[in-house]
């Protein structure tokens, strides 16, 4: 969270934190680990009633009508989710809803969107295809034109909330560029295989498309010309993962600091040892830097700044490197209890390790940044 929130942003933060603390404290998150989908549908509808799925949706479509500022609110939500390693398909649902509101067809805006906003249905985004690269440029899945519409074939994995999702936003290649399609998960030819995962409640699935036929009306945005929409979704995903990891690492640092005050060895609190104090100083600096870079990326997205793509990659790269290291160091500060199942710290480490990988590891984003520095003179590469 940035340090000068508007009154509305502060209210949103307070109500979000209250809801998460009351509904899904970390003890509940642990129970949800046994749940097949990792979240409870009725909980999701209560969360959606707070407007969580519609932060990027225009007022005319029944959304929050925050305009581009919705990205800031979504960032606040992501950070709070990080603080409590919260469950739920919040971020992919919100991103898909935002895209439908921005460039969906009338039918999609009238039918799919209201159900997403109310939490009655869940949507997710199918981007990655099982390789190491997450950049939209790596999408190879083909969408072919047929007499009846479009045929999708290929594999999308890992797909967040892929098992519970009712609607899939599929990014594929057609007509010389990227296109996106909104596909019901129960369409013939769609096979969803749930995956085991590192995060206890954030679930992923492998989604296979075997000659899935969809009508022209499934198209979201322009055929072969969706690169800008996809890049925007990707920027949001990167910035939100960064904000969530910043929130998670910040929370772990808080409770580890408390531990350092309460825990005594050789008759002194851990907090009195300079060797440890200096490590806390480093962690505090990295933690503030994680918040700074995530906030800057979200602000740039909200402002429509042409630098948003670069700043989102910078944030994802920095938080991907540092949020897990902060938590690993906090494990070290805890000693043996830090590597037990009983202690909550591993839930946080699982979340930030997942975020580090999903939507691209730091090295992938550094390569994209190097391309901007070296290969494109003064331009903003996608």
């Amino acid at each position, binding site marked *: 969270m*940035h*340090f*000068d929130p508007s009154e509305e942003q502060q209210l949103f933060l307070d109500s979000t934190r209250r809801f998460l603390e009351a509904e899904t404290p970390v003890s509940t998150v642990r129970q949800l680990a046994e749940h097949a989908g990792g979240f409870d549908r009725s909980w999701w509808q209560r969360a959606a009633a707070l407007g969580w799925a519609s932060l990027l949706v225009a007022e005319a479509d029944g959304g929050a009508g925050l305009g581009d500022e919705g990205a800031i609110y979504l960032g606040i939500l992501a950070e709070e989710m990080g603080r409590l390693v919260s469950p739920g398909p919040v971020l992919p649902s919100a991103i898909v809803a935002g895209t439908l509101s921005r460039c969906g067809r009338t039918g999609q805006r009238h039918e799919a969107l209201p159900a997403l906003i109310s939490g009655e249905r869940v949507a997710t985004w199918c981007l990655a295809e099982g390789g190491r690269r997450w950049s939209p440029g790596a999408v190879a899945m083909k969408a072919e034109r047929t007499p009846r519409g479009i045929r999708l074939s290929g594999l999308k994995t890992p797909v967040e909330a892929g098992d519970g999702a009712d609607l899939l936003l599929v990014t594929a290649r057609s007509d010389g560029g990227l296109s996106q399609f909104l596909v019901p998960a129960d369409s013939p030819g769609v096979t969803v295989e749930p995956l085991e995962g590192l995060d206890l409640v954030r679930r992923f699935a492998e989604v296979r498309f075997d000659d899935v036929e969809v009508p022209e009306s499934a198209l979201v945005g322009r055929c072969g010309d969706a690169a800008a929409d996809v890049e925007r979704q990707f920027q949001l995903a990167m910035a939100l993962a960064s904000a969530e990891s910043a929130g998670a690492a910040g929370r772990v640092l808080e409770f580890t*600091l408390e531990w*350092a*005050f309460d825990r005594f060895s050789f008759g002194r*609190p851990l*907090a*009195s040892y*300079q060797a440890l*104090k*200096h490590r*806390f*100083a*480093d962690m*505090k*600096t990295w933690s*503030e*830097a994680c*918040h*700074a*870079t995530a*906030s*800057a990326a979200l602000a740039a997205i909200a402002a429509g700044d042409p630098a948003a793509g670069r*700043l989102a990659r*910078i944030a994802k*790269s*920095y938080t991907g490197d540092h949020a897990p290291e902060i938590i690993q160091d906090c494990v070290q500060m805890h000693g043996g209890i830090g590597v037990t199942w009983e202690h909550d710290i591993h839930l946080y480490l699982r979340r930030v390790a997942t975020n580090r990988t999903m939507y691209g590891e730091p*090295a992938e*984003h*550094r*390569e994209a*940044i*190097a*391309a901007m*520095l*070296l*290969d494109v003179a003064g331009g903003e590469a996608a």
Partner: protein
Amino acid sequence: MSTESVEDFRARAREWLAANMPRRAPGAPAWNAMDVSEEDAARARELQRKLYDGGFAGLCYPREYGGQGLTPAHQRAFTEECRPYEMPLLFNTPTFTIIAPTLLDMGSEAQKRRHLPAMIRGDELWVQFMSEPSGGSDLAGALTSAKWDGENWRLNGSKIWSSYAYFSDYAICLARTDWDAVKHQGLTMFIVKIHQPGVTVKRIRQSDGAIEFCQEFFDDVPIPPENVIGQVNDGWTVAQRLLHHERSSTGGSSPYASGTAGTRKESVDDLVELARRAGLTGDWKARQQLAEAYVLQTVQSQLVDRVVKGMETGALPTTAGALLRLFSGTFAVRRATIGFELAGPDAVAWKAEEESASRYGRGYVFRQASCLGGGSTEMQRNIISERILGMPREPAADRGVPFKDVRRNTGMSRR
């Protein structure tokens, strides 16, 4: 008079700069700290005077002290606009970012009227006489003494690590004035004229071969009573303000710096150029390193924005500048290492006429200076853990003891 809008100011500055300031040679670094000569200092004074005459000096300083009374946003705009021009960057640190703000906070009205306009006009370059040969981090353990002779204070002792004292005019100097008081309560801050009988300035050659730092020796140097800053024996209060401004300066959040070194802090253009010359633009590791430097540099300025905002709103204590100082120190170290690796063999063996990559070798040798000057990163870590996180303070054997009874260095070995 209402304040000119930032955009109007920017347009006016752009036009004035183009008409008045000399352009930097293309590709030339804005600032080469390796070789600053007395001629360079004279040049900086001349350029500073030009800015002053044009009404573009001391932008964030009050008008009554020779400044322009503008906001940090105006200063940022000016710094962006002046990038292509040769600027008197020598005045930024410590004169404008550390010493002048300290005088503004703690100096007498007469001191402010005497010295601030002179600095802003380019007439006075200042240095800090703070660290001593006996120790740098334990600043309040100063042994240099000032004794009242009935008419003047008499300064004796030695200071060290002052940059460019040999061509500077004045120094702000912390000295012990009461040996019976406990450590922090027997210090006074003085204004000292550098070039006068009794002051000997010795230049120090650094590990990178450059000569920037100096050591000074004081032999009964007279200081008039009006040159005491703040109260006698309350010099530590002044020193704390000075350290606050120093953290802002080295951390990159000072509103009083005008212009930047460009190739040193604000971009990785020099590293990109280095990689191009070395034919490494397609090399995976080199690309990763370039991007890493760029990421860290961007995050550094994002962190500056966040911490400055946090201190303004009270979300962070005023000591939070230590976060910036720690980040900038560790980043500078990493950047120096990346530069050294990108430069490869050219940074360790070069032909006399092809010495451009050699600065990355020398920079690597001098690397740790970024974590030492302006308060060591260890001191910043103490400040962050104790003042921001509230962790227990380090035990100190000199607390509550008259300073004359505090144990001091037993030998002065230097390898």
